[in-house]
């Protein structure tokens, strides 16, 4: 039973992270129908920025909580800046191009960013400091769940609640929903669509950076390639939940997290990544609209 709960919480933790990243995919897809292939790289850049900033602050001799409080915002700001810039360079000029052009551009951007970090930093794995403070309350359940798991799940839940509120209640959130419905209509009623798209990239990137910092500090190491796998898995989560749907991304993240944890925990750990890919393939073949998505109708 203890083993079951250990796996359950492991899945919940993974799932929360997948959900955080999946939101970026789903929001972008909802608005410009683009699979932002470089989104995983944003997550990786968020984690790298955090590593660098915390390293610098640590060298300055700041205490742990101060490092965490300063590292996370800087990582979020940088990831958002990257997301914003990528959109301007690689996607915006291709708004009216054939559908595959921005996707190819996105793949190129993803490869570019991976190698940018590889060249400017290192191809090796780097140890990531454990920024998350230990919680006494949790440590009593030692072995079943850890304090970093609790922090990750709670943070992810808070961030997602904040996002939901933002989209539901603010002016900008309404503009985002309107643009997702129909960019042309949104433009006609005076919404600045370019601005909405930029904002979508910024928010998505910020969420990915939060996910990146949390998971890196949980796992304890990063390299330039972590974004690829995390990106594909988060994309799987987004599709699983129904791409374009925000609650769908959260649900999809959790379902994927548990699937992976239970499959590796009870079936075989050799094929950890195969489960995610297989789930992705199956979902796209049998229910491309996902759990919460609506099937797309093509007008002729």
């Amino acid at each position, binding site marked *: 039973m203890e083993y079951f709960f250990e796996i359950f919480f492991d899945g919940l933790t993974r799932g929360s992270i997948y959900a955080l990243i999946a939101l970026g995919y789903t929001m972008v897809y909802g608005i410009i129908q683009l*699979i932002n292939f470089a989104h995983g790289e944003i997550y990786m850049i968020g984690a790298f920025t955090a590593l660098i900033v915390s390293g610098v602050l640590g*060298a300055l001799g700041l205490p742990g909580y101060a490092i965490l409080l300063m590292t996370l915002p800087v990582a979020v700001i940088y990831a958002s800046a990257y997301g914003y810039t990528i959109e301007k360079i690689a996607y915006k000029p291709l708004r009216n191009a054939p559908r595959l052009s921005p996707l190819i551009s996105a793949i190129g951007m993803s490869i570019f960013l991976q190698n940018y970090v590889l060249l400017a930093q290192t191809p090796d794995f780097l140890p990531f400091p454990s920024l998350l403070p230990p919680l006494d309350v949790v440590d009593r359940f030692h072995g079943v769940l850890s304090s970093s798991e609790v922090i990750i799940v709670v943070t992810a839940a808070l961030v997602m609640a904040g996002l939901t509120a933002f989209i539901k209640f603010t002016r900008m959130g309404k503009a985002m929903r309107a643009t997702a419905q129909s960019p042309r209509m949104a433009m006609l009623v005076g919404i600045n669509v370019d601005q909405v798209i930029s904002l979508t990239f910024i928010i998505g990137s910020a969420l990915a950076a939060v996910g990146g910092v949390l998971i890196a500090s949980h796992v304890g190491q990063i390299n330039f390639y972590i974004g690829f796998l995390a990106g594909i898995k988060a994309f799987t989560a987004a599709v699983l939940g129904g791409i374009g749907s925000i609650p769908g991304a959260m649900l999809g993240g959790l379902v994927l997290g548990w699937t992976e944890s239970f499959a590796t925990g009870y079936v075989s750990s050799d094929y950890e990544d195969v489960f995610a*890919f297989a789930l992705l393939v199956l979902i796209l073949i049998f229910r491309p609209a996902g759990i919460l998505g609506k099937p797309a109708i093509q007008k002729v």
Partner: protein
Amino acid sequence: MRDLKHSAITAAWFMFLTLPIMVIHVNTIEKTIAWRWENMAYVGAGAFVLSYVWRFLMRRRDGGGFRSLSPGAAGRGRLLRAAIEDRRISYPAAAAFAALVIAFPFLFSLYQVNIMISALIYVMLGLGLNIVVGLAGLLDLGFVAFYAIGAYAYALLNLHFGLGFWVVLPMAACLGAFAGILLGFPVLRLRGDYLAIVTLGFGEIIRLVLENWGTFTQGPSGISNIPRPGFFGMEFGLRGSIVFMYYVVIALVLLTIVVVSRLKYSRVGRAWMALREDEIACQAMGIDKTKTKLMAFSLGATWAAMAGVVFAAKTSFINPASFTFLESAMILSIVVLGGMGSTVGVILGAFILILLPEYLRAFAEYRMIVFGAVMVLFMVFRPQGLIRDRRLRRKFRPTELRGDADGDSGGATDKAAGMKAAGAHG
């Protein structure tokens, strides 16, 4: 003045953006920090200049539309085309080129020959993927899976049953075609971008299985001692076998070129292009979408599998690490750079992307970053690639004069078509 301000802002923005990753280097073991301020200066200067270039290219792109080149460039293109079409120039040039290709192994070192073989394998792969992506418009990100299937088919069949290159080559081709149909059947109903991701998923699954199914594939350590192709039991030395390999690959590339260009201008090839342009209109014209896509997908896979056999024979050692997603991305960028759909373009693309990093050693570590940049920049500024796919001009006779002579020859029709072409362009 506005341009200057714009470029200054861009430079400042990129200096900010690259500050942590390019300037600061934390040594996590010794807890030391290196500040590489010179990088910031490079980024600033580079971004300043590039922002001018970007705006210039953007203006040209949006102003003149995608297709209009500057008049000088168009003139040069026409001159080149005229040269190609004039037999007094093109025949000797082709003969000289053929002589160079044949003499290559004797003019250059073994090392060069090896590199050339690699490049030619990528030509095969590029042309194969070109059927799928360039002609049929199906973005296949798992192309490398079929490459791996071919390579492992040879390695394993040779290991367990001692089968030789020439026996396995056609077997692998069939296996590739079959795998293409098998994987293609469930996924080809999907919309373009989903198809891309699913094929990526398939590619990764195959690689992970190769890595983890140790009893069958020998896992990450791979399979070694794969023999090079023989020739009726003749024994070559090391040099001889590599030179022979070179000719084998040249022959296969020629075969690929012939097959791909014939397919391109056939009934099937036309259907692929139509499918790429407009799926709905295509169906309304009586084309079976699924069957046509499946044909493209499995033909592409056939070529990847054959290239895989050649690759295994060339390196004599394979492991799953040779078949990652990056390999698929590399082949895709060859197709994108060369020009989707254009055979000459893809050949050129393969040579540029594979040979350039080999010969410019200093440039080699920047290879992948350049691939990435090429994909973005070409999509933005030159989506047709280096060489725009040219449409074939047809020769026709009034319906009443229908005969059974070969349409490719016959002076009168040639002349008529020539006049037509000139008229359309004049």
